[in-house]
């Protein structure tokens, strides 16, 4: 049996990113940072897809995590990245635990639509909340990390970047272990045959609920990190098209490997930045065409290309 090199690659890439960070031009560091944020969110989408469920409303948690971070800064004047992350985790865990009680009863279209509805509720709430800037949102500045002041220092940008890399490493490592555990197998079993899982004594709804919460927390972490990296948040993060992007990257990456979401997110962000600059009116069209191509010819996502090459070799 071939030894799985994923953990080695994960650590190696993380180490590489940390080491080369200081030498990257600003735009590249930013691109990697934002890609990893997205990748963390899509890691959660991947878990849900492996459980046989597609959420069209993960923008809810992405936005919630970002606004948890932002509110700490704006309202409570707590400008600490570490605290922001903790707040994002708590907020998304609490909300997803509650909403999961309802969502766990649904599948397929209904799950997608209900999750979409919840994200639009948050969107609507935020757009009408003038204290949080309504549809303009507001800027945030994460000045410290675990009490250490970084704003204004030379390494300020690197600290934000490194934080994201480490979070990506951590979530990747967690998901790697989780997917190889009993819960990971159970998730796939549920995707394949829910009825049988119930008949073998496990609660399908419990597993879906747990995985939903995990994916929500990951989205929240991604959102908070994105808020810290970009320095600005707005309700658009909860709009259904943002959730659609997460689904898109999930399809693009495939569910074969925990590295896939990060790769897919990086490709997505790269194309988006360049497409946006050179041809802003065809960027969505390019996305749509790519999605069709992947659905028709690469149902396992881009990652299935790697596994095919390996098998051929």
């Amino acid at each position, binding site marked *: 049996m071939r030894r799985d090199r994923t953990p080695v690659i994960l650590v190696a890439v993380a180490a590489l990113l940390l080491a080369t960070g200081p030498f990257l031009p600003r735009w590249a560091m930013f691109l990697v940072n934002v890609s990893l944020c997205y990748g963390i969110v899509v890691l959660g989408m991947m878990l849900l897809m492996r459980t046989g469920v597609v959420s069209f409303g993960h923008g809810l948690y992405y936005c919630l995590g970002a606004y948890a971070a932002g509110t700490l800064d704006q309202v409570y004047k707590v400008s600490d990245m570490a605290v922001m992350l903790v707040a994002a985790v708590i907020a998304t865990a609490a909300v997803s635990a509650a909403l999961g009680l309802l969502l766990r009863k649904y599948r397929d279209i209904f799950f997608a*639509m209900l999750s*979409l*509805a919840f994200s639009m509720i948050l969107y609507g709430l935020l757009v009408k909340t003038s204290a949080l800037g309504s549809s303009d949102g507001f800027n945030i500045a994460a000045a410290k990390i675990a009490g250490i002041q970084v704003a204004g220092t030379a390494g300020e940008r690197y600290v934000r970047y490194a934080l994201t890399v480490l979070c990506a490493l951590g979530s990747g490592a967690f998901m790697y272990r989780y997917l190889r555990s009993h819960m990971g197998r159970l998730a796939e079993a549920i995707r394949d045959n829910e009825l049988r899982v119930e008949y073998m004594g496990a609660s399908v709804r419990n597993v879906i609920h747990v995985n939903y919460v995990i994916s929500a927390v990951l989205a929240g972490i991604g959102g908070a990190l994105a808020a810290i990296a970009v320095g600005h948040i707005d309700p658009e993060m909860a*709009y259904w098209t943002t959730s659609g992007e997460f689904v898109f990257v999930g399809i693009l990456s495939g569910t074969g490997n925990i590295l896939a979401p990060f790769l897919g997110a990086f490709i997505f962000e790269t194309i988006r930045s360049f497409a946006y600059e050179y041809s802003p009116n*065809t960027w969505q*069209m390019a996305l749509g065409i790519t999605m069709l191509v992947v659905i028709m010819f690469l149902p396992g996502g881009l990652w299935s290309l790697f596994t095919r090459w390996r098998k051929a070799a």
Partner: protein
Amino acid sequence: MSQILAVLIDGLIYSSWLFIIAVGLTLIYGVMKILNIAHGSLYALGAYSAASLAGYWINHGHSPMGSYGALLVAAVLVGLVAGPIIERGLLRFMYGKDEIVLVLVTYAVFLILEDLVKLVWGVDPYFIAQPYGLLGNFSVGDLTYPNYNLVLFGTAVLVGAVLAWILAKTRQGKMLLAVIHDREMSAAMGINVGRVYFLTFTAGAMLGALGGALTAPMISVQPGIGAETIVLAFAVVVIGGLGSLPGAALAAVLVGIVRAAAVHYRPELDLFSIYLVMAAVLILRPKGLFSAQEARKI
């Protein structure tokens, strides 16, 4: 008292609009089991085409009353062109795939069409307000509304009635109901399911475009209207029960009135009152107001 009346009238106007944009979506889902996200783009295409055609008509000095015809023609053209292209050119190769995969396919089409609209019409907003004000106003008590809203209401009722009649009284309608009920069995009985799909999708596309065409005189036609509208259509269709015509009508009325009430009494809730209703309905009736029975699996 006058506030309640305002809520009712505003609500019914909004309901009419919701019904028109939702009915095509629920029809397509009922027959083909596809939740067509691209319906939003067809709405947008209808709005833009209507704005262009009606604008051209008026600018060339023709009778402004004819602009209504232009709106209608625009909708029909969009449906007749876009519908077949999407269904024959793409969707029919995807039948048989997972429901969610089909949703993603329509999402891809939505993305493509969103940019197509930008490429053809640019990003600046279009205005085609003449048809809206042309017919004068009507009053109820001390409330005044443009008569155009009656056109909207009338169209909604007409569309609902015609569809209901087709489904109940005509042979084609019965075939449609058969396919909705059991696709395989219908095919086994000799119904040309492929042709039913083609006709249904084209009709649904026309209805979506009609929604856009009728709305064009009331709004500024600009990028993003498709995305905004499709989520509203989803909510109405899910509340009513996927694939149910009476469900869509009832849901439209429910949502319309609730939203009007929100706008009048609690404006902060306006934007998402519709999704609150959706969540509430689903908690009480998990499959929507009118839902189909499911057969035993083992």
